[in-house]
C-alpha cells in the first residue's frame, strides 16, 4: 500500500573519515549517495529504516552519529 525512501545523513560534527566509513557501510547494502553543497546523504527504497538503524549500530555507529528520515508514499488507489 505504500512505497518508502529511507534517508540517512551524518549528524552533528562528524569527522570526514567517519563520514566515509558511514558512506562505505551504507553503500555496501545498496544505499545511493546524494551530494548537495556541503551535505551528503544516502537513500534506499529497499532497506527499511529500522533495518538500517540496526545495521549501523551493528557496525559500530552510535545513534548521535547519524540521522534517519523515513518517508512513506501511498501507492495508487489508497484513499
Amino acid at each position, binding site marked *: 500500500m505504500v512505497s518508502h525512501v529511507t534517508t540517512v545523513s551524518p549528524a552533528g560534527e562528524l569527522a570526514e573519515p567517519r563520514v566515509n566509513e558511514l558512506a562505505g557501510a551504507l553503500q555496501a547494502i545498496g544505499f545511493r549517495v546524494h551530494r548537495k553543497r556541503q551535505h551528503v546523504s544516502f537513500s534506499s527504497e529497499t532497506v527499511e529504516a529500522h533495518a538500517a*538503524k540496526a545495521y549501523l549500530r551493528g557496525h559500530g555507529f552510535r545513534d548521535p552519529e547519524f540521522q534517519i528520515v523515513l518517508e512513506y508514499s501511498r501507492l495508487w488507489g489508497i*484513499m
Partner: protein
Amino acid sequence: MSNIAPIALPWHRREDTWAIFIALGLVLAVTTGFFLGASPFVGATALTIPTWSGSLAKVAATFAAQPAGPIALFAVFLLAFSAASAVIGWDVGKYAAGFALLFVFSIVVTVLGSNQTLKQWQLETPLLALAVGMLLGNSVTLPGWFQSALRTEFYVKVGIILLGATLPFTIILQAGPLAIAQATIVAVTTFATIYFAATRLFGLDPRFGATLGAGGSICGVSAAIAIGGACRAEKSHVSVAISMVILWAVAMIFVLPLWARNLGLEPGVAGAWIGTSEFADAAGFAAASAVGDERAIKTFTLMKVVGRDMFVGVWALVVALLSVTIWDRKKSGEAERVDVGEIWRRFPKFILGFLAASLVVTFVLASIDAKSGTRFSKEAIAPLKTLRGWAFTWTFLSIGFTTRFRELTRFGWRPFAAFAVGVIVNVPLGYWLSAHVFADYWNGVK
C-alpha cells in the same frame, strides 16, 4: 531546518502543489472573469443538474439550454489534470482516457442522484457514486488506463481548496480555536486509547501502536503515513494501519450521517461530529455531503482540516522524539537527532491552498460594496461551489472504484481490536462534544 537532501519528489512534482495550482488557478480565473464581465462564460463551465422526478425531460432541457456546459467542464479539468499528470510523471494518455470515462460516470451518477425519489431515500450523488464505484470495483476487473485516473487524494485536495473559496476567512479565524480545542481533546484521547490498547492489551510494538493511533485519531491514511515515517514503523505495520483506516472510514460514511439523521442533529452539529469522528478526509466529505446541507460541509471542514489535519506535523515531531528516546531506551544525549523540520516535512501543504483561497475571496468581498458582493456570490462563488461538487464526485467515485474489500482483510485480529477500542471511544466522545458541549457554536456557523 534539516540538512537532509531532498531525495523525495521535488515540489513541482508533488500532488499537493498541483492541487493548489489547479484550484487556486480556478478561483483566480473566476474572480478575474467576474471583474472583466466574463461571468456568463465562467458560468457555462459550472454545469448544474436540476432535481427531477418522473421523466428526464427537465434534465434534457438543461443540457439543451447549455450544450457547451459538459464539454467546457470536461475540457477545463482535462487540460488542468493532464498538465499535472505530465509534470508529476503519470502516463498522460492513459490518464486522459481514464478521466474521460470517470467524467461520464460522474454525469450519470449526478443525474441519478438528482432524482427526487432517490433523494428522499437519502441516496444522493455522494453515496450513489460510492455505491456504484464499490459495486463495479469489487465485481469487474477495471482496465489499467481507467485505474490511472482514480486519484482519490488528488481530487479531494482540489475540492478542499475550492471549498476554501466558499468559506470566509473570518469564520476560519473564529472557529479555528474551538475546532482545534475539540479536535485536540478527541485526537489525544483516541490516540492514547488505541496506543495503550495496542501495546498494553494486545502486546503490539509501540511504533505499530502509534501508527494505528495516528490513523484513528489525526487524519486517517495521511497520518498513518506521516507518523509511521516519523517513528520508523515497519512498512507492513503502516499497510495494516491503512487497511484499518479505510475499513472504518468507509463504514462511517454510511453510519455517521444515518445516526445524525436518526438523532435529529442539526446540520452544523452533524458536520462537526463527522469532522471529529470520521477517519479520512475523502470519506468525511462523502459523509458530510450525505447530510445534504452546506452547513454540515462547512463545520466538517473546520473540524477536519483546521482542527485535525493542520497538526499532523506537530504530532510527527512528538512521536519521532518518543521513538528515538523512550522506545529506543536512550537518554537525549545518546539518542539519534530529530529536528523541528519534521513539522514542515509532514505538514499537508494543500492546506496552504485552502487558506489562500479563503483569503482571496474574503479580501474581494471586503473590497467591494454590498450590491457587488451579492452579485459576486452569485456569479463567482456559486460556480466555484459547483466545480467543487464535481471534484468531490470524482473523489467519491474513486473511493468506490479503489476500495477492494478482499485486499483490506489481510491483518491480524489484534490491530483490528485495538483500532475498534479507539472507535468505541472516539465516536461517542465526538458526538458529546459536538452535540452538547459546543453545540451552540456549531449551530451558529452559517
